[in-house]
């Protein structure tokens, strides 16, 4: 081969690999309606990427819609969707890093109002017909919101990162990610009435069939990871189940529809009866190379929904299991699915 041919060959090199197409497939997003038998999937989205979304899974057809909000409103929902609460015929979407709560019609998902003024809201708990509390990651406050005017009407000073809340025995119980207490607030006075020592990293709280509250704590600051049971009437901690070692990290505590079985994530999905005397040793659903990020139990059918965030930078996948733990099927949701709301 003479030099000129060699050079000509080299000059052709750019053509060799250039057969990859970079244009993505167009996405068809039509507004979809949510029916009475389905599941909203809360897709957190990436921090600062503004790609939070709410997926909808139709239990009757087995079909999933990636996002209800953007097609219905022509604009994305916001940055980091932490939670969704259904109340009085409205859906309340708490969008953490957008500092807002978006009120939607749960059927067509059109936004009807936006409540602003938050620093980094996490969860919304209705505490009366037209009143709700919103926990905050920063600012040492729980916000009081009027649901009639959709505006913030007050603050409750509560130190640290407040997280999930529950209303029981006429009191509001507020978990705290950065402190080792569950704070008790009187919704009549909107003031902290008491605190109950648990472990640090309290993140989720549910009420069981006996009216007792269970709190999942990740531990930290010298306290172990733990599940704690609280009597909301006496404001006493009745039982503590400490996890061996500090690497455990129980969270996403959920309860079955009958209130007799607890589920939580700790890597895999774990299941525990409310009368059990010890923590489960083995997972109910093993993680098996997945990154479990969200957990929910269907209150009617007992089906367990567990979300795999995969690498947190693509659509997550939701796996469905029967109440006995047998795999059923799976479907794709949005980015970083973290929670489920059943209707």
């Amino acid at each position, binding site marked *: 081969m003479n*030099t000129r041919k*060699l*050079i*000509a060959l*080299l*000059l*052709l*090199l*750019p*053509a060799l*690999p*250039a*057969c*990859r*197409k*970079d*244009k*993505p*497939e167009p*996405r068809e997003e039509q507004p979809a309606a949510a029916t009475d038998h389905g599941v909203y999937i809360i897709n957190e989205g990436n921090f*600062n*990427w*503004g*790609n*939070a979304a709410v997926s909808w899974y139709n239990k009757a057809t087995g079909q999933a819609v990636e996002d209800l909000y953007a097609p219905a409103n022509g*604009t*994305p929902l*916001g*940055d980091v969707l932490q939670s969704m609460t259904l109340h009085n015929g409205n859906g309340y979407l708490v*969008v953490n*890093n*957008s*500092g*807002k709560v978006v009120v939607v019609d749960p059927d067509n998902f059109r936004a009807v109002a936006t409540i*602003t003024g938050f620093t980094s809201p996490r969860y919304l708990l209705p505490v009366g017909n037209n009143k709700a509390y919103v926990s905050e990651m*920063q600012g040492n406050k729980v916000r009081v919101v009027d649901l009639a005017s959709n505006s913030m009407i007050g603050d409750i000073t509560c130190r640290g990162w407040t997280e999930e809340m529950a209303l029981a025995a006429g009191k509001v119980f507020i978990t705290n990610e950065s402190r080792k207490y569950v704070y008790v607030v009187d919704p009549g006075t909107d003031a902290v009435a008491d605190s109950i020592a648990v472990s640090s*990293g309290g993140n989720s709280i549910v009420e069981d069939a006996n009216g007792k509250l269970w709190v999942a704590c*990740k531990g930290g600051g010298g306290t172990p990871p733990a599940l704690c049971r609280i009597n909301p009437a006496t404001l006493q901690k009745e039982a503590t189940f400490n996890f061996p070692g500090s*690497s*455990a*990290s129980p969270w996403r505590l959920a309860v079955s529809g009958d209130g007799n079985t607890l589920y939580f*994530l*700790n*890597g895999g999905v774990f299941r525990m009866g409310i009368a059990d005397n010890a923590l489960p040793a083995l997972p109910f659903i093993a993680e*098996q*190379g*997945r*990154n479990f*990020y969200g957990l929910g139990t269907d209150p009617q059918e007992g089906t367990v929904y567990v979300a*795999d*965030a*995969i*690498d*947190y*930078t*693509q*659509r997550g*996948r939701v796996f469905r299991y029967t109440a006995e733990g047998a795999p059923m099927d799976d479907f794709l949701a949005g*980015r970083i699915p973290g929670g489920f709301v059943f209707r």
Partner: protein
Amino acid sequence: MRCVAVGLKRNTWGGALRLPNLLSCLLLCMGGATFAQQVADTLHLGAVEVAKPRLAAFSAGTKVQRVDSATLARYANADLGTLLANETPVFVKSYGLGGLATTSFRGGSANHTAILWNGINIGSPMNGQSDLSLIPMGVADAVSIQYGGGTALWGSGALGGSIHLENKPHFGQGLQVAGGVAMGSFGENRQQLHGECSTERSATTIGLYNSAAANNFRFTTGQHREQRMPNATFRQYGVLLGQQLRVGKADRVGIHYWGQLANREVPPTLQQELSTAFQVDASHRVMADWHHAGATWGTVVRAALLDERLDWYGSADSTAATSRAQTLVAEAELRLRPAGPHLVDMGVNGTFAEASGAGYPKGVRQGRQALFALYRYHPAKGGFTGSASVRQEWQDGRSVPITGSIGLEYRMRPWAVLKAQGAKLYRLPAFNDLYWQPGGNPGLLPEDGSSSDLGVALQHRWKRWDLRTEITWFNRTVQNWIIWLPGPAWWSPGNIMQVWSRGVETDSRIVWKQGRSTWLLGAITNYVVSTNQVAKSRYDEGVDKQLIYVPMYSGNARIGWQRERCSVTLSGTFTGYRYTSTDNRDFLPPYWLLNARASVRVLENSRWHADAFVQGSNMLGAEYQVVMDRPMPLQSILAGVGMRYSRPNKTKLATP
């Protein structure tokens, strides 16, 4: 015609006819023309082999882009990120004017580019990367970009490429003072002053710069409202001091200081209601060096102390989250030039870094030692140059896999040079990867891999025409690629990905003189496929998909005209799809930017000259985002004046 056929065939495979393909095809046609004259030898930079910088002496076979002085002058008011984005194939992930700007070099990540200031790697030991918007172009009077793996030459991190900023000595030039002021859209204003006083023995430099902008450009929000960008002000100022002395005929010693303070507000994303965050970056960098260049041997000893601090404030009344790192670097090289075509360099490097801050446990520190040996073979005849390098590094006493490279350069014809290089690569995890609390993983392994380059550089001078083109094909694999993923309790890094990057770069330029005018036509095209080859988790749909924020196609083209005291440059850059999900389903659309600049010499005499300029960016008002939900400005203008005063010594000696 042959190349046209290839282009059409490729388009049949690839779908729609695209501009990058057309550009490639055009270049192929250019390449098919007969180049029959002499090419300037990019290797033979000077006779004194012993005094050559490491980059010039031992990088045979790699593509090195030296930014010429006219281009540097055009970017005197800009930062390194802007220069790279407009003048090179390097993709710059920019959060906006003054905001964080990082590189993706040939499909690599931000910490796969080594940035060296006078031979010292100034990348942060905390996150392993450099913010290009914190490097104003005024801090260097020479900038070179080396493409491809260079960890054997430059140490950990130079996987994708390396950028070399230098303050060159200018002995015997007398008094030189240069200054400039510029003002532009959105409250942008910049001032710089650079003075140099030199005799044949001594050169003293002082530089001052200041830049600020309200940066309150108009943009359309996610709710389709138009508003001005809030909380986006930045101010940056700094000082450069330098003293170089020539001792005897063969020795030179120098000391440089570069101090800088930047205060930047962090604007909200399109999805944030507001942002009150701001950050303060302060750095002090001192380095000293001694160069000895004898007839058969030479030595370079350099030492540097780098201190950087980052204070992050959530709001004006919150306390700062502070991270601080100090790095001490000492390096010595011995260069031997025995008889014949051989050049040998042996060196030792010691780097000690420590960091403090709320995110680190107390006393985080790291010691690294490296031995390296470099060799060049360059016979006087035959047009052949080969270089080889090997490097062994130890981190806190543990050895890192040995790395090395081999490069070959062969002048096949007076107008054609063939280049080839192969290298083994590595990158040590940064402090954040290892020690951040919570999540840091002290058990991380270094990233390692290998790369190969093949290229051809052609140059043809004919009458008033100067044509040159360089085409480079590259291939790189990196194992143990570190990414952060959420764990059960917090995010934590792991040696998770295996990334295969490959592609083609072209860089072409035509200069011709027509009467009193000089015209320039240039084009850079870039095709990068950079894919993760292993599943990060069981149901990962991202295998063999393009990495996020790595455009597969990008390029730029420029046309310039110069006549006596006037010059006009028009340049366009194209950035193709960038995916924002690892399954390549979500993306940011491609964008074109058109920039223009005109300058005129308004004063010129034996001592003084002054130029006035006006430049427009994004002249067509493209709405685009480089980073998702971070809108960028529409049209903007910057205008200013640059002046230079020169009073040469009565007896002037040539710079060695």
